[in-house]
C-alpha cells in the first residue's frame, strides 16, 4: 500500500506539469460541453476528440481523453436537472428528482449537490483504485487465454442482460459486432477476411467511425426526426447567487453521497454499463432507506446526490478492469482502450510495470480533474447552462458538421465519413427497432482480442473445449454467465406463476 502511495506521488509529479494540467483542464471543459450538448455523449465525444491528441505524448493524450469521459458524466446531469433531458444514459435517474427540484426553484442546489457528490465519490473511487489496482494486476497475471475468453463472454452477457431491452436482441448485436470485428487481417494467420478486394477494408473497420455513427449521428438524426416546433426547448438557468445548497441540503446529502460512492465503486468493477446500473441501484437504495420515501419523485435531494455520486464512482472504478485486465466492460472504456492502443499503450496486467508513467500519471490526473470539475461546475454552471439556450435548429447542424470534420481528421479519409454516415443510418434504424448499439460497439473493439483468446485456448488444449471448464477461474466466469443467461428465464417463469389463478 505504501508503495502504491509512493507511486501515486510520482504520478502527481507527472500530472501536475503545466502541459498536463492544461490537457486535463481542456478535457474536463470539453467533456462538460459534450455532456451538456444534445447529440454528443461521452462515446461520440471521446471518439471525435481522439485526433486532437495525436500530437501528444501517450500520458497527456490519455489524461485529456479521461478528462472528457468524466467531464461528460458531470455535464450529463446539467441537462437532466435543467431540461429534464438526460445528457447521457447514466443521468436518466437524475431527471426524476433533479428536474422536480428545478421546477421548485432549487436548480442551483441540485446542480451544486451533483458537483459536490461527484467530486467526493470520484475522489474516494480513485483512492480505491490506488489500493486495488496493483494487487489485482498481480492476480491478473494468472489469467491465461481461457480465462480471458470466459471473462469476455461473461461481460457480453451481463451487458446484454442489463441494458434494459431484449436479451436476444442485445446478444444479436454483440454477435454482429464480433463479425464486423473480423473484417481485415486475421490476427493469428495474417490472412485477409471479408475485404472484397478493397484496400480500405484491409486494416479492418474503423471503430471511431462506428462509434460516432452509432452514438453521434444516430442521436442527431433521432433529434431531427421530430416536428420543427418540438426542436425548441425551454431551459431554467439558475443565477450564481442561487447555486449554493443550504446546510439542511448538505446534511441530507452526506449519507447518500457516501453510499452512492460505495455502490458505484463496487458496480464499476463488474462487467456491464456500470454508471447506469450504479445510478439505478443507488436511487433504489436511497428510496428504500429513506424515512420519507414518498418525497422521491417530487424533488428529494437524496435522489440526486446518491445516483450522481454512484455515477461518478462507477466511471472511475471502471478504469480498473480496463487498465488491469485490458478488457473494457462498457462502450466508453472500449473507446478509451482503442485510444490507448493508438498511442502504443497496451492495457493489461503489465501496464503498471511497463508504463508506470501513464498509469500513475493518469490516476493522479483524475484527482486533479475531479477538483477542476468541481471548480468548473460550481461557479460556471450558469454559463454552461446558457449554452442550452442555443436553439436545436442551430445546434444539430453544428454537431453534424463537427462529426463530419472530426471523422475526416482521424485518418484523412473520406471513406471513413461514408462509413460513419452508414453507421449513423443503421444506428437510427436500430433505435427505431429497439436494438441496443452498446453491445455492438463493445464487441467490435474487443472482438479481435476475444478471437485470439478463443483460438489460443483451443491450441493449448489441442482442440478440447474442456479447457474452458477445467480451469477454476474460467469456470467461475462461465457459471456467472450461465446465471445471467438464466435470469430472464426465471423472471419469465415467476411472472407466469404469479399470473396463474389459485
Amino acid at each position, binding site marked *: 500500500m505504501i508503495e502504491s502511495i509512493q507511486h501515486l506521488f510520482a504520478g502527481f509529479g507527472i500530472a501536475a506539469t503545466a502541459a498536463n494540467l492544461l490537457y486535463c483542464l481542456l478535457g474536463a471543459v470539453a467533456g462538460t460541453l459534450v455532456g451538456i450538448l444534445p447529440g454528443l455523449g461521452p462515446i461520440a465525444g471521446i471518439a471525435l476528440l481522439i*485526433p*486532437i491528441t495525436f*500530437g501528444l505524448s501517450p500520458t497527456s493524450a490519455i489524461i485529456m481523453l479521461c478528462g472528457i469521459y468524466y467531464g461528460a458524466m458531470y455535464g450529463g446531469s446539467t441537462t437532466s436537472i435543467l431540461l429534464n433531458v438526460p445528457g447521457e444514459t447514466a443521468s436518466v435517474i437524475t431527471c426524476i428528482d433533479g428536474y422536480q427540484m428545478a421546477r421548485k426553484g432549487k436548480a442551483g442546489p441540485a446542480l451544486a449537490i451533483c458537483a459536490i457528490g461527484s467530486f467526493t465519490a470520484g475522489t474516494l473511487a480513485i483512492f480505491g483504485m490506488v489500493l486495488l489496482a496493483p494487487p489485482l494486476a498481480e492476480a491478473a497475471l494468472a489469467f491465461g487465454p481461457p480465462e480471458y475468453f470466459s471473462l469476455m463472454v461473461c461481460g457480453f452477457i451481463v451487458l446484454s442482460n442489463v441494458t434494459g*431491452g*431484449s436479451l*436476444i*436482441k442485445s*446478444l*444479436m448485436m454483440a*454477435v*454482429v459486432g*464480433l*463479425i464486423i470485428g*473480423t473484417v481485415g487481417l*486475421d490476427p*493469428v*494467420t495474417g*490472412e485477409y*477476411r*471479408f475485404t472484397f478486394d478493397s484496400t480500405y477494408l484491409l486494416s479492418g473497420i474503423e471503430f471511431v467511425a462506428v462509434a460516432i455513427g452509432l452514438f453521434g449521428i444516430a442521436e442527431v*438524426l433521432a433529434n*431531427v*426526426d*421530430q*416536428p*420543427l416546433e418540438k*426542436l425548441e426547448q425551454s431551459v431554467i438557468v439558475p443565477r450564481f447567487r442561487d447555486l449554493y445548497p443550504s446546510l439542511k441540503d448538505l446534511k441530507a446529502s452526506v449519507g447518500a453521497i457516501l453510499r452512492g460512492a460505495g455502490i458505484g465503486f463496487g458496480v464499476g468493477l463488474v462487467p456491464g454499463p456500470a454508471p447506469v446500473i450504479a445510478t439505478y441501484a443507488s436511487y433504489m437504495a436511497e428510496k428504500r432507506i429513506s424515512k420519507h420515501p414518498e418525497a422521491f419523485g417530487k424533488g428529494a435531494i437524496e435522489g440526486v446526490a446518491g445516483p450522481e455520486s454512484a455515477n461518478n464512482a462507477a466511471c472511475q472504478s471502471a478504469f480498473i478492469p480496463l487498465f488491469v485486465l485490458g478488457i473494457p466492460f462498457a462502450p466508453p472504456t472500449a473507446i478509451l482502450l482503442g485510444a490507448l492502443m493508438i498511442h502504443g499503450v497496451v492495457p493489461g496486467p503489465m501496464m503498471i510495470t511497463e508504463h508506470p508513467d501513464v498509469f500513475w500519471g493518469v490516476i493522479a490526473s483524475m484527482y486533479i480533474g475531479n477538483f477542476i470539475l468541481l471548480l468548473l461546475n460550481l461557479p460556471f454552471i450558469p454559463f454552461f447552462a446558457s449554452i442550452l439556450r442555443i436553439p*436545436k*435548429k*442551430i445546434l*444539430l*447542424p*453544428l454537431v*453534424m*458538421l*463537427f462529426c*463530419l*470534420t472530426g471523422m*475526416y*481528421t482521424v485518418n*484523412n479519409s*473520406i471513406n471513413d*465519413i*461514408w462509413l460513419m*454516415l452508414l453507421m*449513423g443510418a443503421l444506428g*437510427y434504424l436500430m*433505435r*427505431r*427497432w*429497439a*436494438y441496443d448499439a452498446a453491445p455492438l460497439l463493445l464487441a467490435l473493439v474487443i472482438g479481435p482480442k476475444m*478471437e485470439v483468446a*478463443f*483460438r489460443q485456448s*483451443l*491450441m493449448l488444449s*489441442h*482442440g478440447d*473445449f474442456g479447457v474452458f471448464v477445467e480451469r477454476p477461474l474460467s469456470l467461475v466466469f462461465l457459471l456467472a454467465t450461465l446465471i445471467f443467461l438464466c435470469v430472464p428465464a426465471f423472471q419469465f417463469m415467476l411472472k407466469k406463476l404469479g399470473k396463474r389463478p389459485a
Partner: protein
Amino acid sequence: MKRDELIGCGIVFLFGGITAILSLQMPMGTFRMAGSGLFPFYLGILLMVLSLLFLLTLLFAKASTPQKPEIAAPPPSAKKQMLKFLGASALAAAGFGILGYPLTSFLLMLLLLWILGIKRPVLLITIPLVTAAASYLLFVHFLRIPLPKGLIGL
C-alpha cells in the same frame, strides 16, 4: 406486430447467413489449429440461431405487448426532414474532396439550417460563414490537421 421487428430480424438472419457462406470460402482448419474462416463461420451460425430464436419469441408472444421502440414513429414530414438532413450530409461527404473543406462546410451548414426551418437570409449566411471560418481556423491553423483543399485551394 411487428412488421418492423420481422424486417429487422430478417436482415440480421441474412447477415448471419451471408457471413457463414463467405467464411466457408476461407481456410477453416480444425479446432486445434483454427483457420481464418472458423471463428466468423460459427459467429454467422450463432447469429442465425439467435435471430430464429427471436423470431420464435415474436411468433409466440401472442398477447404480450410489443417492445416499445426507443423513439416513437415520426410523422411523415419529420421523416422527410430527417432524410433531407442525412442526404445533405452525404452530399457534403461527396463534395469534400472536390469543393474543399471551407466551401463544403459553408454549403453544408446553409443546407442543414434551411432544412431545419431557418429561412432568414441574415442567419442563413452568417451562421455558416462563421462556422466554416471558425472550424477551418481551429483544425487547419490551430491544430495543424490538413483538410481537403479542393477547387479553391484553401
